[in-house]
């Protein structure tokens, strides 16, 4: 696939991100697609630090820092003000998994239900990494964190945030990861083109310290998450039309993904649990494949127009 990274740079070097931080790499690429007429809202998350302490500011767009649970609604307020002033500025809420799946879910649901004209981007590193690796509802089954120690690893599967967002029937929702940069960039552009309503991007974002792995394995880890179908790349339009955007060439066992990261030690040590996870991943993949095929059938049927 031929694809050119936009040359414009909206993130200065020297951020406070950790080496191999998926959230930092994702921000850089996303900003290139967002362009210069954009505002970012940052709730409490790693990016509250990464952007730098006053007077340092790594991004070349305005950033409004806000309270943990308010990213979606502060973005809504900013958008309303810009609209009343006759401006078409893109307003992006950029939140971690805590600020999306957990404490931010109420305001996010409100903004999604009202179909606010904002872009909400979750960079998901699957735990509260900024406070030092505590579990969130995005933490996968069987994972170690400081609040789900080896003796009692995460007992529940990851919350299906994409399902929740799809259930709000928003115009556009997609998963992506910076390990597949062309797919991520295209989805940012698609989200921008779908303006007028709520857009949601769910970015799996490696955290080398929190995932207990080497920094230079970050891209490889995110790539394997996709190859093993642990984190499928897909998009959902209007909460109904599903489209898988990347089809793995061959089935790669989930252990290939887990073994790269120390946080999955409890999972890898428990065959029954690993099998359960393996089945969950397969089941979820086939669910998406079915939805994908169903959407294709509807689109090609004479009644397809009614989908919209």
């Amino acid at each position, binding site marked *: 696939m031929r694809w050119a990274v936009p040359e414009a740079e909206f993130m200065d070097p020297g951020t406070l991100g950790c080496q191999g931080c998926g959230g930092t790499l994702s921000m850089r690429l996303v900003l290139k697609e967002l362009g210069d007429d954009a505002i970012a809202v940052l709730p409490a998350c790693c990016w509250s630090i990464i952007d730098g302490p006053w007077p340092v500011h790594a991004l070349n767009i305005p950033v409004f820092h806000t309270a943990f649970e*308010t990213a979606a609604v502060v973005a809504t307020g900013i958008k309303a003000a810009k609209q009343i002033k006759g401006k078409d500025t893109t307003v992006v809420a950029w939140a971690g998994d805590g600020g999306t799946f957990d404490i931010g879910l109420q305001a996010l649901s409100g903004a999604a239900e009202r179909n606010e004209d904002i872009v909400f981007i979750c960079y998901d590193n699957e735990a509260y990494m900024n406070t030092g690796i505590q579990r969130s509802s995005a933490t996968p089954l069987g994972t170690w964190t400081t609040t789900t120690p080896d003796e009692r690893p995460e007992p529940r599967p990851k919350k299906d945030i994409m399902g929740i967002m799809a259930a709000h029937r928003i115009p556009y929702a997609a998963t992506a990861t910076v390990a597949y940069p062309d797919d991520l960039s295209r989805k940012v552009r698609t989200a921008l083109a779908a303006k007028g309503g709520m857009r949601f991007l769910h970015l799996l974002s490696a955290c080398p310290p929190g995932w207990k792995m080497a920094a230079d394995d970050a891209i490889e880890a995110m790539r394997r998450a996709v190859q093993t179908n642990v984190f499928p790349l897909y998009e959902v339009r209007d909460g109904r039309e599903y489209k898988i955007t990347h089809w793995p060439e061959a089935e790669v066992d989930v252990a290939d993904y887990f073994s790269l990261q120390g946080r999955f030690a409890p999972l890898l040590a428990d065959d029954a649990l690993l099998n359960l996870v393996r089945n969950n991943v397969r089941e979820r993949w086939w669910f998406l494949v079915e939805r994908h095929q169903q959407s294709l059938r509807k689109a090609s049927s004479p009644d397809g127009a009614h989908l919209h």
Partner: protein
Amino acid sequence: MSERLLLTGNHAAAYGAMLARAEVISAYPITPQTMIVELLSELTASGRLAAKFITVESEHSAMAACVGASAAGARAYTATSGQGLALMHEMLHWAVGARLPIVLTNVSRAMAPGWSIWSDQTDIISQRDVGWMMLFAESVQEAQDFIIWMYRVAEQVFLPGMVAMDAFILSHTAEPIIVHDQDAVDAYLPGFEPLYDLDPTQPRAYGGLVNRDHYFELRYKIFESMERAGRLLIEAGDEFAEILGRRYSPVEGYMLDDAEIVIVSAGAMTSNVRQADKDLRDRGMKAGLMRLVAFRPFPVAEVRRLLAGRRKVAVLDRNMSPGHSGVFAQEIRSALAGQSGAPPVYGYVVGLGGRDVRVETVTEVVDDLMARDVPELALFVDVKGLPIGPVRPDSTINRLGPLEVAR
């Protein structure tokens, strides 16, 4: 043209926000405030008010949306009450730290449990230290006008402000008021000119990390701006008289010139204190009223000036801070401490949860005041089965009230 309309306090507040040309309104329903945002919703839907109306999913989000809108340069307004104001608490701090001149109306009601929608100042008093200016309306007219007065000051000092009105006593009571001429209000309150408005050509970061070398100074500046707000409230109150025909000030005196006994009050119950003062004067007592219009910034100088040399001061608090006293009484004592001619201050806790504070309640307070020689921090008025007095360690209140009635 100004017009004379019969409006409830809630509808007057909505008119106040409309006359102030609020540009973004974000609100969540809560009794007894709901009529404010219902009317604003109608006014925006009909185009009479050119504003964005955001129907958020909580009061926390109502304030957060106002924070975003104000940061992006819009005049933002919301209204709430009781539990809703409490839920906003975190974002009330955010509005102050981000220096956003948001204005909200709080229809003051009691805090649950037990559920109570009736008048009580505890909700707003609980937000005392967040750094919002606070005005207490006594009438429906003021419920409208104070919004305009508050924006005028807030946008000069870049601090937010709230206007309190009593649940039902003002919010649901219709009074004839003057709805000001829009051009006159525009002359008094020009459009909001923010210093910063999240302009993408000026890519700054707002509200991020500050280390120990800077945070303290940011807070110092907030305190400094609040001091300036004290002076500006007086100036803007005088300008209000010049342009809109009604003079407002942070403190108001009534029958104070020769008063030996002064009753301190805020909010709607003040009207009954006025009547009580007349009745007491008829009985030959030199009684007067000092009404606190502004609670933040606290009008320390005016309070000292107006209370110096009085024989006794009774403070009526429709709120209490358990373990100490009513909060207005604390603040009055604190302002007077160490001043020459400082009178003794007697704290009276009245009317919690909407229990009526009648004219007779006030005269009973004054009778109690005259009978005492030593100031008390918190004297409870109208507790069932108990005379006016401090809380008794061996209180028999548990054996009084509904249980006894049920037998």
